[in-house]
């Protein structure tokens, strides 16, 4: 993480400049430089059925908001501030969409009702409401409110049941665009390693991790079976992993 300190200083200087000049071109540069974070967080919360593109969009807009609102004098790292903002927007996105997956009907309905009640109570109270307040406002029990909030957490992180955690971690490195954010060392090993793969393998990796396509989508795109894509992916990832192990 040798470069982290230097790039953090550069970023701070750019933000100070932006605060002074409000130059839109500089703003765009700052946003673009941190889009990798948007992609990483969006990927973290891809739910079955929730479009990755939608999440990237919400996350990207949140990065724009973060750049607009960030105060470099506050002593917080921009990436922490931005992560907080992006997570906040993603949470709101899921809440607004009323996701309540695999829950009994009454819980789904309660969840939708809670969505609005949380909003109005937050405004009224000037803070986020407690579970007790929500229960009182909706007439439901506290247990039901907690259950509904849990059911509504439609997002899943790249969780324990992810097909391959290694896949996800590599996805973040390949798909992320921001060299100042991720592990700089890994990226410099990764690029040449990727280049050593056959063109079709590179294409599949790009489609899978940078463009976020599913294996079936890739299969129909390149005209092979999904099982074949799965095997090619596993083989490519294994080859890349070997290179990492050798170099580290």
């Amino acid at each position, binding site marked *: 993480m040798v470069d982290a300190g230097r790039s953090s200083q550069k970023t701070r200087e750019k933000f100070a400049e932006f605060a002074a000049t409000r130059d839109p071109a500089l703003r765009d540069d700052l946003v673009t430089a941190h889009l990798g*974070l948007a992609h*990483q*967080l969006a990927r*973290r919360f891809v739910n079955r059925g929730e479009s990755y593109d939608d999440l990237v969009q919400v996350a990207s807009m949140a990065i724009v908001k973060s750049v607009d609102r960030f105060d470099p004098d506050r002593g917080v*790292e921009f*990436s*922490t501030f931005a*992560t*907080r903002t992006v*997570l906040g927007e993603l*949470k709101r996105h899921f809440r607004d969409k009323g996701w309540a997956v695999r829950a009994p009907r009454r819980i789904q309905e309660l969840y939708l009702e809670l969505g609005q009640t*949380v909003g109005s109570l*937050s405004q009224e109270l*000037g*803070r*986020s*409401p*407690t*579970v*007790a307040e*929500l229960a009182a406002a909706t007439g439901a029990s*506290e247990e039901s409110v*907690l*259950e509904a*909030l*849990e059911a509504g*957490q439609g997002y899943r*992180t*790249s*969780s*324990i*049941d*992810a*097909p*391959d*955690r*290694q896949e996800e*971690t590599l996805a*973040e490195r390949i798909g992320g665009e921001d060299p100042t*954010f*991720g*592990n700089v060392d890994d990226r410099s090993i990764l690029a040449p390693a990727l280049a050593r793969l056959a063109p079709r393998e590179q294409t599949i990796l790009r489609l899978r991790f940078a463009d976020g396509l599913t294996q079936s989508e890739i299969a129909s795109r390149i005209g092979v079976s999904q099982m074949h894509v799965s095997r090619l992916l596993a083989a490519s990832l294994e080859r890349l992993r070997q290179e990492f192990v050798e170099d580290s």
Partner: protein
Amino acid sequence: MSGNGSMPPAAGGDVVELTIPVKADLVVLARLTAATVASRAGFGVEEIEDLRLAVEELCLSLVGADDNGRLRFAYRRTDDAVTITCTFEPEGTGNQEARTGDELSLRILDALVDEHGRNGDGREATAWLRKRRARSTL
């Protein structure tokens, strides 16, 4: 600044313990317990959601797709905060490498809670977090 190192000790308050097998369909129990303890500690729903996400991150930083075993949680409720620890107890061979939380995990935890860290480097590491209650709810 957080991310590494031992948890500053907390004393007093009430402790709830939970141990679950490392199975995707049971991790929900870790979240529900966090939510209930936080709710009984007077946290607002936004903070509760943050804790839910943070608990998930704790698990992720300790466990990989091919790990088997159990996750031991302790939830401590004190006057002004909730402290959660999570220890992975591996079973079988699985992935022998010790997991280190990746950088995204650290950023997410920085964004969600006030302090967090990790005790130990071996496979049986403990990850912990602490979140303080916003004062205005009580």
